[in-house]
C-alpha cells in the first residue's frame, strides 16, 4: 500500500457514519473525534500496511492527532524506527 492508498484507507475508516471528510483532512484533533473501535481499526490499517505491530509507545494522542501525522508515523515505522 503506497502513501496515497494508506491515506485513503485512513479517511475511509474515520469518515464512516457520515463524518465530514473535509473537516477530518483539515482537523488537528483527530484523536479526540474517534472512538475506541475506530482507533483499533486505524491501528489495524496501519499494521496491515506496515506488516508489523505498532509499538505501544507509539499509540499516543500526538501520533493520532491528524491524518498527515499518522502518515508520518507510518513512514517512520516503515523505515524501521520506533
Amino acid at each position: 500500500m503506497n502513501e496515497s492508498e494508506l491515506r485513503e484507507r485512513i479517511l475511509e475508516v474515520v469518515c464512516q457514519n457520515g463524518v465530514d471528510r473535509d473537516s477530518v483532512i483539515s482537523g488537528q484533533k483527530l484523536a479526540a473525534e474517534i472512538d475506541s473501535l475506530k482507533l483499533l481499526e486505524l491501528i489495524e490499517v496501519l499494521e496491515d500496511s506496515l506488516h508489523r505491530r505498532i509499538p505501544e509507545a507509539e499509540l499516543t494522542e500526538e501520533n493520532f492527532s491528524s491524518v498527515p501525522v499518522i502518515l508520518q508515523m507510518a513512514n517512520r515505522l516503515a523505515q524501521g524506527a520506533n
Partner: protein
Amino acid sequence: MDTTNVRAIITEHFRNALKTLHRDGLVVGLSGGIDSTLSAHLAVEALGPKRVFGVIMPERENSPESRELALDLVEKLQIDHAEVELTKPLEALDAYGKRDAVVRRYFESYSPGRHRVGIALRQDMTGSSLPPLHYLVVQDERGETLLEERIRLRDYPELVAATNFKQRSRAVQLYYFADFHNYAVLGTTNRDELLLGFFVKLGDGAADVEGIEGLYKSELYVLAKAMGVDQRVIDRTPTTDTLPGQKSQQGYFYGLDFATLDTGLQVFEGILPVDAAAQRTGLTAQQVTQLVDNVKRRHETTTILRASPLGIGRDPLKKYL
C-alpha cells in the same frame, strides 16, 4: 448529601412506580455488591420485606464471596429469595466456549481451570484525548499476569458479545420471577454506569424501575453507610464479576478513583463548574476539561445502550404521511 431526603425520594418513587406499573412488589438481583445491596435495602424500606424478592445467580466463575454476601443480605432483610445456578444455561449458550476461543487466539494454552482472564482498559482520562484501548489479561491462579496484549479489532466485539451472555442470562431469570410474582424488576444501575454506558443493554440494564441511577458511585457509599449496609459490602472492591480475572471497575474501567470521576461527571452534567471541580480534585482546569471531553465521547458512543428502540414515532404511520 442529605441521606434522609434521598431515601424519602427513592422510596416514594418505588411505591409510585409500582402503582403506575400495576405490579405488587420488586424483584432484585443480588450480587453481593454495593449497588444491588443498597437497592435491596431501599426496596425493603419502601415496601417492607414481604414485597421484595431477591434472586441470587451464581455461576462457576463468580467469586464465592458474592453468593455469601447475597445470602447474608436476604437473611438480614428477611426477604424471600431464590438461588439460580447459571453455569448450565451459560454452557448451553456456549458463553464460556465462545469467549475462550477468543482468548486462545492470544494465549494458546489457556485453560479456564488454571487461568483467569480479564479485560483491561488503558486510557489517560485526564491527560489525553486518545480513546481507550482494550487489553486481554491472562493470569495464573495466584493472580500473576502471564499475558497482557492489545485486543485486535475483530476479537474485541466477539469477546464482549460472549461475555454479555452473563448479564443477559441474569435478566432472563429476574423477569421469570417478576412475572411469576406479578412484581417489577428493580434495576441497580448507578449514575456512573448510566452516563458511561457501563452496563449491558437487556442485561443488567433491563429493568422496570430504577432506584439509584440518580446517584454517583461515591454517593452510594455515603447512602450505604447511612442505611446500615454490611461493612464488608462497603469495603469490597467493586467489580462486574463477569470475568474471573477482572479487576475492579474503578481501576480497570475508568482508571480513576470514584471521587475524581464523579466530579468530572458532575461537570459533564452541568452541575459543577470546571474551576470548582479542579479545586475539589486537585487537577488543573485543563485536566478537568480533558476528563469531561473523554466522558462526553464515552457518553455519546454508548448512546445505543440508553436508547429505546428507535421507531418512526409512537403514532400510527398514517399520521406521518
